[in-house]
C-alpha cells in the first residue's frame, strides 16, 4: 500500500502565472467555459473566480489594496483538499466518490448520477457539475498519473514550486521548516490543514498562508455535514410526535363531543 500522497502549497512563492490551471485543463481534457469566449470578472485580474466541474485548479488572486501605493497581492493555487474525513465522500449516495490507495478522494464519473449532494457537502466549495458529462467533477490528484508513477500535472508545471507534491509526512516536515524560516524573517505565516489532529483529520492538500483563512476563501473550522444528523433527526421526530399526539387528541375530542352531544354527519355540500 503506497503512503498517503498530497500537495503542500506555499502561497508565498506563487506568482499567479496559472501554469497549474492550464496544465490541469490540458491533462484532464477539461472544456473551456463559455465555448472558449473570454469572460472577464470585472472586479479582479482573476477571471476564473472559482473551482468547479471544469476548473479543478484555480489560482486565486487576493488583491489587498488600500490605495494606489499601499497594497499587496496574495496568490493561492486552490484545489480539492483531499480531506482525510471528506464530506463529499460521506454523503455521496451512489458510492461514486472513493478513497484511493494514495489516500486521495476521487469521483468515478461512470458511477455518479449528478445528484449534486457532494457539492453542498464539501466545506470548501470545490465540486461542481461538468456540463459535458452531466456528473460531478473535481481534482483527482491525477490518479491516472499516480498509478504509473508520474507526479500530478499541476505540480509538475509549477515554475516556483509553490505547489509541491509528495508523501504527506515528508511534506509536513518541509512545511514546518518553511514556516519557521518565514517567521524568522518576521512574516506572519501559518499552516492550514496540516494538522492530523485538526479539522477533518487533516487535509491531504494543505497550505501555507500569510493572512486569515477567510481572506483566501477558506472556512476557519471546516466540518463534516453529518454533524447535524442526530440533532436534526431528533427534532424532526419530536415534531412528528407532537403532531401525531395533536391529531389523536383531536380525534378523541371529536368522539367525546359526539358522545356528549350526538354528532352530525351529512354530505359536504357547500364546502368551499
Amino acid at each position, binding site marked *: 500500500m503506497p503512503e498517503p500522497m498530497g500537495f503542500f502549497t506555499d502561497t508565498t512563492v506563487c506568482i499567479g502565472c496559472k501554469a497549474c490551471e492550464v496544465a490541469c485543463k490540458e491533462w484532464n481534457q477539461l472544456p473551456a467555459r463559455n465555448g472558449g469566449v473570454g469572460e472577464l470578472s470585472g472586479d479582479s485580474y482573476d477571471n476564473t473566480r472559482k473551482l468547479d466541474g471544469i476548473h479543478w485548479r484555480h489560482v486565486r488572486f487576493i488583491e489587498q489594496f488600500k490605495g494606489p501605493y499601499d497594497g499587496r497581492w496574495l496568490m493561492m493555487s486552490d484545489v480539492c483538499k483531499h480531506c482525510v474525513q471528506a464530506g463529499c465522500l460521506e454523503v455521496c449516495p451512489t458510492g461514486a466518490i472513493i478513497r484511493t490507495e494514495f489516500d486521495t478522494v476521487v469521483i468515478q464519473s461512470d458511477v455518479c448520477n449528478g445528484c449534486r449532494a457532494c457539492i453542498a457537502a464539501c466545506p470548501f466549495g470545490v465540486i461542481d457539475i461538468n456540463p459535458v458529462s452531466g456528473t460531478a467533477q473535481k481534482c483527482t490528484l491525477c490518479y491516472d498519473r499516480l498509478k504509473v508513477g508520474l507526479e500530478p500535472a499541476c505540480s509538475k508545471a509549477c515554475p516556483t514550486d509553490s505547489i509541491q507534491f509528495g508523501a504527506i509526512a515528508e511534506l509536513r516536515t518541509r512545511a514546518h521548516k518553511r514556516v519557521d524560516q518565514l517567521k524568522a524573517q518576521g512574516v506572519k505565516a501559518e499552516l492550514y490543514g496540516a494538522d492530523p489532529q485538526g479539522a477533518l483529520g487533516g487535509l491531504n492538500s494543505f497550505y501555507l498562508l500569510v493572512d486569515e483563512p477567510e481572506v483566501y476563501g477558506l472556512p476557519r473550522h471546516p466540518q463534516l455535514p453529518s454533524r447535524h444528523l442526530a440533532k436534526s433527526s431528533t*427534532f424532526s421526530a419530536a*415534531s412528528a410526535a407532537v403532531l401525531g399526539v395533536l391529531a389523536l387528541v383531536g380525534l378523541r375530542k371529536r368522539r367525546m363531543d359526539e358522545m356528549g352531544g350526538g354528532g352530525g354527519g351529512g354530505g359536504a355540500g357547500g364546502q368551499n
Partner: protein
Amino acid sequence: MSDTFFSGAPHWTWFIIPYFFIGGLAGGAYFLAALLDWFGRPDDRPVVRTGYDVAAVGAILSGLLLTIDLGQPLRFWHMLFQSANFPAIMFKGWSPISFGAWGILLFGLFAVLSALGARAEEGRLQMPALRAVGGMVRGGVAKLVAGIGGLIGLFIAGYTGILLSVTNRPIWADSPWLGALFVASGVSTGAATLILLSPRRGATERSLGWLSSFDARALVVELIVLIAFIVSLGSVNRVWVSVWGLLLLVGVVWFGILAPLRMHARRQPLASAAKLVLVGGFLLRLATMLASEGIDRYRVAVGL
C-alpha cells in the same frame, strides 16, 4: 462569519423545490389518512381514500421530479444498487439523500398499495391485475399497510429538511430545525390538500371539521418551529435582508400561517384557508432553498 458561506451551491432549484413541496404534502396526507383509517369512523372513509390517492400520485410525481433533476437521469438506480456490483444494495444510513431514496421507493410502494386497496373498496378498478392487487389490500392487511406507510409519510415530509441540514450550505447547515419545520409544513399542507380534494369523494362536514381544526394546530406548531429556526440561525439571519426574507415574512408567515389561522378561528370557508396554507407551504420551500442557493462562495470570499 459562518463557515458555511465558503461552500458551493448544489443548484437544487426548479425540480427540487416542487419535489420538496409535493413530497411533503403527499407524506402529510398519507399520515392523516392512515390515522383516520385506524382511529376514525366509517364516515371518514372518503378522506382516507383521498389521502391514499394524494400519497400515491405525490409519490410518483416525487420520483419523476427527482429523476429528471439528476445530471444523468438514467442512472437514478445507482442510488439504490451498487452499479458495479448489481444487485448489491447501495445504502448509507448516515446520508439522508441515500436513505431518503429508499424512503421514497418504500413510500411509493405503500402509497400505491393503499390507493389500490381504497379503489377496490369503491369498486373503481377496471384492470383485472390491479383489481387483484387492490383486493388483497383489505381489512387487517390494509390497516397494516396504511400504518407503516403513514409513518413513512411522516419521514418523507421531514427527511428533506434533514437532508438540507446535513450539508455545509448557509442557512440549511446553520440550524437543526429545518427537518422539524418541513414535517409541520408537510402535515399542514397535507391536511389542506385533503380539505380541498376530499369533498369531491363525499367527505362529511364532520371529517372536514376535524381536518380544519387539526390544520390550525399544525400551523401553530409550524409557527413555533419557524421561530426556533430563525432564532437558531443567529448572525446568519442577515441573509434574510433580501427578497427571500420578504417572501418568508409576508408569503409564509402572514399569508401561509397567520391568515389561515385567523380564518380557522373565525370559521371562515375551509377551502380559502386551505389554499393559503398550500401557497405558504410552497413559498416556505422556495424561500429557504433559494436564499441559500443564491449565496455564491467566491463573491463571499471577495466580500461582495
